[in-house]
């Protein structure tokens, strides 16, 4: 049971206990509530725009405007879920702080998921100003970066043509839709910095542009946003925009394929009989349809695997890309008999060919036009040939633009979904 302790032992024990308390208490007390902030003292920022006018930085923030919720009272009809405020200053942080002069709540950046750069600002170079966002513990490194094409960032902010009530989240959703459509680019701060610091790789971020809304039935905003394309950077400065096809090419080669789709022309010749390929006929043109109408198939990618490699062949650098895609036949406008394995194989072949050609074309455009290695082949080359890399690293952009590339595509259609018969196929054929 209880240990017998001598009076000296007991006072020793007491001393130790007091010491323990003295050591533990400050740990608990002095770590204190210095960073405590009540929810109704902060303004939650959902989007942030950075611009530059002359020497002055302009930071625009989109802040949530919380409508007090009271049980029983009806929800107010006002659409103002957010409010905008702007600060100007000598530096980005100065501009952020100057917001407090005009806006009552301190901007809370932890939930900011969108950072938009005005075009002028991006041309001036974003990397040195990203330091604040990278350094500050409040900002989120997973914020998506976007460049506003031919616009100031604050012109983009506030446009909401979607269902989301908060414009910032509308933009976020657009960016995240990349998984279904790779002609846009999703890049967050971490990814940008990673690409920037990688030798032999140029960073690339998303692009956002304002479009005039064509649907006149809608009484809402006259404009809508589009994240199609990407902005390409050279050493932290904006050097141009990629169009949709080029962006798609970048995404494919980087292995960022998601659930995108490929539209391709049907093979000219398909085997008519599953057993014998000896009686080919002209690729499924129904007689009623004019010869000038193309028959197209659409392939939806479910799984993909991309292998990239760099080799030196005969003293020249060869960049190799091997793409394996697996998915389903999503749309078929021709009348080919896709219940036959041979036909499917021909369709797979056509799909591979189409993709391969598209990628090759766009790859070469990027190579020749921008001379920027956004794919990271320099990085691969650095790993494979460290010695040779030393010779080319200073003019890698030039070497890259002159190198050859070889793209291989393998397609596998594992299902034709609910039907084997194209809807347009004539009866009895």
């Amino acid at each position, binding site marked *: 049971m209880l240990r017998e302790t001598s009076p000296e032992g007991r006072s020793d024990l007491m001393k130790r206990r007091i010491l323990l308390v003295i050591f533990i208490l400050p740990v608990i007390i002095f770590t204190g509530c210095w*960073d405590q902030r009540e*929810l*109704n003292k902060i303004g939650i920022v959902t989007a942030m725009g950075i611009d530059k006018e002359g020497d002055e930085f302009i930071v625009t923030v989109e802040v949530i405007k919380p409508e*007090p919720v009271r*049980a029983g009272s009806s929800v107010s009809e006002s659409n103002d879920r957010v409010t905008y405020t702007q600060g100007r200053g000598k530096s980005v942080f100065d501009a952020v702080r100057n917001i407090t002069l005009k806006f009552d709540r301190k901007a809370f950046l932890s*939930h900011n998921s969108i950072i938009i750069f005005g075009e002028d600002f991006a041309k001036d170079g974003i990397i040195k100003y990203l330091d604040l966002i990278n350094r500050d513990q409040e900002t989120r490194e997973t914020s998506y970066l976007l460049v506003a094409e031919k616009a100031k960032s604050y012109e983009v902010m506030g446009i909401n043509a979607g269902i989301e009530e908060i414009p910032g989240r509308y933009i976020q959703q657009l960016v995240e839709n990349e998984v279904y459509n790779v002609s846009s680019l999703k890049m967050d701060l971490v990814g940008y910095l990673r690409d920037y610091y990688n030798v032999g790789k140029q960073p690339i971020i998303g692009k956002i542009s304002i479009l005039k809304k064509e649907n006149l039935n809608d009484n809402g905003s006259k404009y809508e946003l589009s994240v199609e394309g990407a902005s390409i950077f050279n050493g932290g400065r904006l050097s141009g925009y990629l169009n949709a096809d080029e962006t798609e090419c970048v995404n494919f080669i980087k292995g960022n394929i998601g659930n995108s789709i490929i539209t391709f022309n049907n093979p000219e010749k398909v085997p008519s009989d599953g057993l014998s390929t000896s009686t080919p006929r002209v690729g499924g043109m129904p007689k009623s349809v004019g010869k000038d109408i193309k028959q197209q198939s659409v392939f939806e990618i479910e799984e993909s695997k991309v292998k990239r490699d760099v080799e030196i062949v005969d003293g020249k650098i060869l960049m190799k890309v091997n793409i394996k895609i697996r998915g389903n036949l999503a749309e078929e406008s021709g009348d080919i008999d896709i219940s036959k394995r041979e036909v499917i194989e021909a369709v797979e072949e056509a799909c591979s060919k189409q993709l391969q050609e598209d990628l090759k074309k766009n790859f070469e455009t990027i190579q020749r036009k921008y001379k920027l290695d956004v794919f990271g082949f320099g990085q691969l080359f650095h790993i494979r040939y460290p010695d040779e890399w030393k010779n080319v690293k200073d003019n890698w952009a030039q070497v890259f633009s002159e190198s050859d590339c070889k793209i291989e595509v393998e397609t596998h259609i594992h299902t034709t979904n609910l039907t084997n018969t194209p809807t347009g196929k004539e009866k009895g054929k």
Partner: protein
Amino acid sequence: MISKKIDENKKILEEEFNGSSDFSIYEFKSKSGKEFLVSYINNLVDPSSISQYIINNLLNYENKFDITGVVAASRITEISDMNQIIDKILNGNIAIFIEESTIAYTVELKQYEHRAIDEPNAETVIRGPKEGFVEDLNINKSMIRRKIKNKNLVFEDFTLGEQTKTRISVVYIKGIVNIGVLEEVKRRLFKINTDSILESGMIEEYIIDNPKTIYSTISNTQKPDVLAGKILEGRVAVLCDGTPHALTIPKLFIESIQTSEDYYQRPYIASLLRMVRFFSLLVSILLPGIYIALQTFHQEMIPTVFLITMSENREGVPLPAVIEATMMILMLEFLKESGTRLPRAVGSAVSIVGALVLGQASVQAGIVSAPMVIIVAVAAIAEFTIPSQREIIIYYRLFILFLGGFIGLYGITCGLIILVVQAVTQKSFGVDYGYPLTPTNKSGLKDFLVRFPMKFFKVRPEAISKQNVTRDKSRGKK
């Protein structure tokens, strides 16, 4: 000492009982002229039995001293000490003094009103026996004996309390009980020096291991099947006359999330419910604290959409979040306490007012935010799944709330460390409170968060049971 003269005995007894109105004493003569003195407490004995079995027979009595052959009663005792006789009278016996004899007889003819065996209100079950202990010790003993028909089931009786002379009974199964624990229980029981024991909770407080910590290391039950199960694992139980709550010793932490139903239902549902109970213990203690910590320190950890909802609810609430939470928890305690104390008739009125005030009016008035009401309500509901850890939950909930509100998640981590360290360092009568997790025991873990099927229970809990550990007798024979 008993005097040979009836008159003197009568005088002594009348003095001892201070002329209390429920004390009866009277003399009569048998046909042979022998004088008798009969005394008892009115309302403890059966008056018709007295006349039928005792007085009737004694009137015809002729023999000199020995009346055992005459009085038709089974529980008849010879006593020569006056103090013992007084004790017996107080316990519902009839004392019979005979002229010219220094030996008196006591006959037990107890009869008094007691509550019928009923379903215990504190431990209700869906599957399993519905009977619960009553206030009468003897009935309680009979209920246990009916469960365990074994000659090794032992009841050892003591009397505690100078004034109340409460009968208590230590129950165990010889050959299974942990002797160390049994000796320790008896040693601590004998050391109790008090004038009154009215309920087993008072005994619990006298014999508990460490009164300074909040953890209770003695368990209690109202159900004979639970008690039987526990003594079959090698535990010791203490019954106390006058209360339906029996103590079982030692108590492990895991017992608070176990129920008797776990063993009567299939293991799948039992395991799931046990995990639910454990989770609800965590929720009940931690939820308000974590909510406040996230809300006032770590807003970046909350999903954006949820944060927006939260901030909309917070908008216009005048008090800081910690105060708001404390207020709600206090209101809840008011409600719970008034629900227990109030007469039944007023109870429903209180619950209506409470629900309206707490649930709607306070939110509508903008004094508290709606999510706070939900959080506190969830914590309260979770609390009811583990009634035996109520005090720990209530105290630690507030403790964690303040730590979370003033220091954030760091404080909650500190609080949790304190909570866990305190729990695992407890000992209940020499048995580790955290068993079977600390110290880890492989066979004990089969009856931890997951209740294994019965065929896996080959041994009793090794921390408690030291002798005759095997349950599976076929294994013992090999």
